């Protein structure tokens, strides 16, 4: 079976700082895979590099194709999308315009309407606020908009970076439920999370990052029971 995503020996440098040091990972079709680790472990850099948003070295295969030389927009065309850290919605555009930009690659008007309805059904809040500028949204609403925006292109693999950051626990639960539903509808997910407990609950496998390296990997159920992980990340 061919993996949806296969990353080998990924390296990211910011000047003198070596943020990602030879990370390798893979994601199979239909999975939810989690990247866990502390702040600064290299999770965001890894996801940004997979999307092509920052410079990186190493091999990145998506749907069996080498994409490491591709521009981000080419990767988006192939079915890769990202919900970046802190949502990064377009602040001076309305909610609807943000979703329209997310559907930039959708040429068919009918398909666009369907997707928009689909997103509005998942996040009724966005429908209510569609004429509002994105900068007026709350933190949680911005995250919803960022998810909705990435869904407009119906990605095959969705990268989700620290979705729970700064959100109220109740909202985190709600959004994780939505992620599970999206996964059931056929979207493969690679999520990075500081909320280790939650991440291990919804994922099937996980990679633990520390100082830019993968220090552990395995089925999430096993990692949950791992003594070191319980101490370091679950506070048990």
């Amino acid at each position, binding site marked *: 079976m061919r993996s949806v995503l296969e990353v080998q020996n990924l390296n990211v440098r910011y000047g003198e700082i070596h943020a990602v040091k030879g990370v390798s990972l893979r994601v199979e079709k239909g999975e939810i895979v989690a990247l866990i680790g502390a702040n600064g472990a290299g999770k965001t850099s890894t996801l940004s590099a997979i*999307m*092509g*948003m920052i410079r990186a070295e190493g091999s990145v295969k998506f749907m069996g194709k080498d994409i490491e030389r591709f*521009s*981000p*927009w080419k*990767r*988006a*065309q192939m079915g890769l*999308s*990202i919900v*970046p850290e802190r949502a*990064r919605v*377009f*602040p*001076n*555009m309305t909610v609807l*315009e943000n979703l*329209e*930009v*997310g559907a*930039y*690659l959708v040429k068919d008007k009918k398909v666009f309407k369907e997707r928009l309805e689909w997103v509005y059904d998942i996040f009724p809040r966005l429908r209510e606020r569609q004429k509002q*500028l994105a*900068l007026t949204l709350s933190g949680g609403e911005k995250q919803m908009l960022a998810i909705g*925006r*990435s869904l407009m*292109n119906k990605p095959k693999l969705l990268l989700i970076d620290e979705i729970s950051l700064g959100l109220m626990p109740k909202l985190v639960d709600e959004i994780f439920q939505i992620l599970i539903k999206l996964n059931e509808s056929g979207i493969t997910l690679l999520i990075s999370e500081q909320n280790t407990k939650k991440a291990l609950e919804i994922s099937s496998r996980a990679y633990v990052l520390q100082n830019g390296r993968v220090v552990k990997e395995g089925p999430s159920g096993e990692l949950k029971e791992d003594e070191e992980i319980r101490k370091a990340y679950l506070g048990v």
Partner: protein
Amino acid sequence: MQIVINALVLGSVYVLISIGLTLIYGILRILHIAHAGIYTLGAFLGLTFYALTGNFWLALILSMVLTGIAGVGVYSYIYRRVLSKERIVPLVISIGLFIAMQDLYRLIWGAYKKPFALDLGINDIKGKGFVITQHQILILSLTGISLILLYLLMNKTKLGKAMKACADDLVMAGALGINVERVVSFAFFLGSALAALAGVLIGVYENNVYPTMGDEVSYKAFVVIVLGGFGSLSGAVVAGFILSFAETLLVAWKGFLLPRDAIAFLVMILVLMFKPEGLFRRAST
């Protein structure tokens, strides 16, 4: 009334020039000083094609298209290569480029003022105590049309929305499938074509075109983008007219000592002191 008309005409030209600067600053955060050189190029090309063909409209369109292409060239051969450097690098390059452009124009077209005499055969509009000359009619109507088209482009088309998204967050826009290279090139094309329009219009209005005609414009346009809130298009439009009215009214007010160019800077310094984010703030990511 006459003062209002004069201010509107002046403001129109400020706005046309500032649109390109605002688009480019908004997307790339580059202060594109050489834009004033692009404006001068537009004026010279317009004059040259008018002399060759005798058809003003053809000359105007040719000038806008070619100047637009020159603008894209400035982006792809110069700015694109230094985007990852600190912002001071493209700024210094831009200043050098502007000076080099002026010298180049001097070599090609000579150092002296060349007349740009145009009779469109339209009658001046005369009212009680005011006259709108044919050239003023030309400027006001072309600016009006340009602004309407620009508004439709930015708000009703996919390309316009892609440009707005790029101005808000260039990298994110790319990750959503927008070919950022193409959008930035288009912004340079559009901004440069509008600068060419402004150059031709001013050439006709003042009846001369010369290599250093961009000097005054280079700093005026800055005042407009600072007032307009760094990268906000509607802000730049409003700011262009505020500036032209401030200048025209204060100059008309007898006894005011400062020349009009000093007024522009006085306004900018005051705004920067009390409202450093400009009059119309945009949110940043």
